[in-house]
């Protein structure tokens, strides 16, 4: 591993070459930096680090402390992130073959599924990955809820997570229309009409989604633009905010783990 990315040593511990101490002392840190630059010197990572200072952030993120009791349930967020990444990658490649037009959409889907090499696999990844992502996001939400990880100071991250959940469901809704077969067409008709039943704003919102009073020529393009440009951008930005807060605030211990009493703490005495 390149020197700048090595794990920082524990407080009060000095590594052999003096570099990478915890940096609580500003003067010694500066001196170590120079030392490290002299010693490590070349290498791409060193070059980038000298100009960006990125490794401070990266080591802080990668070697951050996690509470005792951290278990497999804590990987559900990362799993959701992986599912999103998989959707983004397969989605980009599906977009290379897909035509968002009411007369050609179904043809292009048939073509990419049946004729393009591995097309069935990539489309299958995207289709089933969507379901997997919805499942994972709910499991992640359940973990956060049942572990009490939404409590102070993490309420804002819960709110961001809820917005991400809604955006993911919007992705599911808009993506469902794109194959433009009977099922996706009528599902979209029904979803739009449910939207239209909302009081006062409902009919306008449905008109906006459909681009008119009926599911028509531009509805599919509209859904496509929302599905592959608008919402993914919002999701990516909010995932950034979500993860910033995770790193900033740290994770919680599982609720069944009691806080340890310091060894020198006084024993509780009954009074009266």
């Amino acid at each position, binding site marked *: 591993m390149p020197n700048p990315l090595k794990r920082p040593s524990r407080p009060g511990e000095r590594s052999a070459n003096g570099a990478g101490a915890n940096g609580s002392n500003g003067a010694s840190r500066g001196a170590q930096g120079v030392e490290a630059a002299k010693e490590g010197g070349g290498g791409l990572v060193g070059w980038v680090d000298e100009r960006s200072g990125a490794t401070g952030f990266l080591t802080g993120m990668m070697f951050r402390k996690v509470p005792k009791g951290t278990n497999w349930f804590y990987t559900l967020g990362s799993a959701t992130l992986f599912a999103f990444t998989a959707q983004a990658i397969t989605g980009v490649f599906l977009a290379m073959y897909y035509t968002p037009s*009411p*007369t050609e959409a179904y043809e292009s889907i048939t073509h990419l599924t049946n004729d393009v090499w591995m097309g069935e696999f990539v489309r299958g990844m995207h289709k089933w990955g969507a379901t997997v992502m919805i499942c994972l996001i709910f499991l992640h939400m359940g973990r956060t809820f049942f572990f009490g990880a939404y409590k102070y100071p993490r309420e804002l991250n819960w709110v961001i997570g809820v917005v991400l959940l809604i955006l993911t469901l919007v992705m599911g809704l808009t993506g469902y229309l794109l194959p*433009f077969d009977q099922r996706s*067409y*009528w599902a979209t*008709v*029904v979803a*739009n*009409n*449910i939207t*239209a*039943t909302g*009081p*006062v704003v*409902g*009919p*306008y919102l*449905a*008109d*906006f989604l*459909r*681009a*008119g*009073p*009926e*599911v*028509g*020529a*531009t509805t599919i393009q509209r859904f496509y633009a929302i599905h592959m440009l608008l919402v993914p951008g919002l999701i990516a930005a909010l995932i950034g905010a979500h993860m910033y807060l995770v790193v900033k605030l740290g994770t919680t211990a599982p609720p069944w783990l009691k806080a340890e009493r310091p060894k020198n703490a006084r024993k509780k005495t009954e009074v009266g």
Partner: protein
Amino acid sequence: MPDDGNSKQGPPEKLPKPDPAGYFEGETMTRRGVFSAGAMALGGAAGAVVLLPTIGFALAPLFEEEGDTWQKVGPVENFSEDTYTAVVITAVPGIGEAGKTTAYVRRSRGDDQSEGEDGFVAISTRCAHLGCPVRYVQAAGNFICPCHGGVYDFDGKVIGGPPVRPLDRFQTRPSDDGQVEVGPRFSVTSQLDPVRTRDPGEFTGGVWDYVYPPRPSVPPAP
């Protein structure tokens, strides 16, 4: 004081020290404040120039009026009083098969005021629950929706399931060359009185006229 300009002693004593700091007498804004506000106004204007037309562009279909939708569906002799004849009409032009929809047309029996003097009734297949396509079942004389089990009688009135109002209808008229023409859609109340078109799932009449306000994109009641 010959070298007043180069003095490092701070500002000349003759200039009053602004109080509060940054404001000279009679000023309501500091120089910094003017430039901050100006920069923000300029940035806001630049953003608005991009954003407002774009939003209008995306919202434009809300204000588009439907064009002329009258279309011929067959000679008058094709339609009887006792049963419906399915005709295919184009609901959304320009998108091929996806824009076509079925309507059920019959001759008016004249025993119903809402059937009008034009002599024909055209029932839309768009279910009044959530918009799935209903099918006329000859044996039962009912319209049945495959999605959530809505059932309508021969006139399109609800007799079962979740729909909130009778089936929509289309305006009809005889054409000069002996054909029936089907025109714009309209919704009906539970008494089959024509009202302005609603989306499926929306009630008609009473307070619902305000809950679901009229929009430019849907035609008025006939």
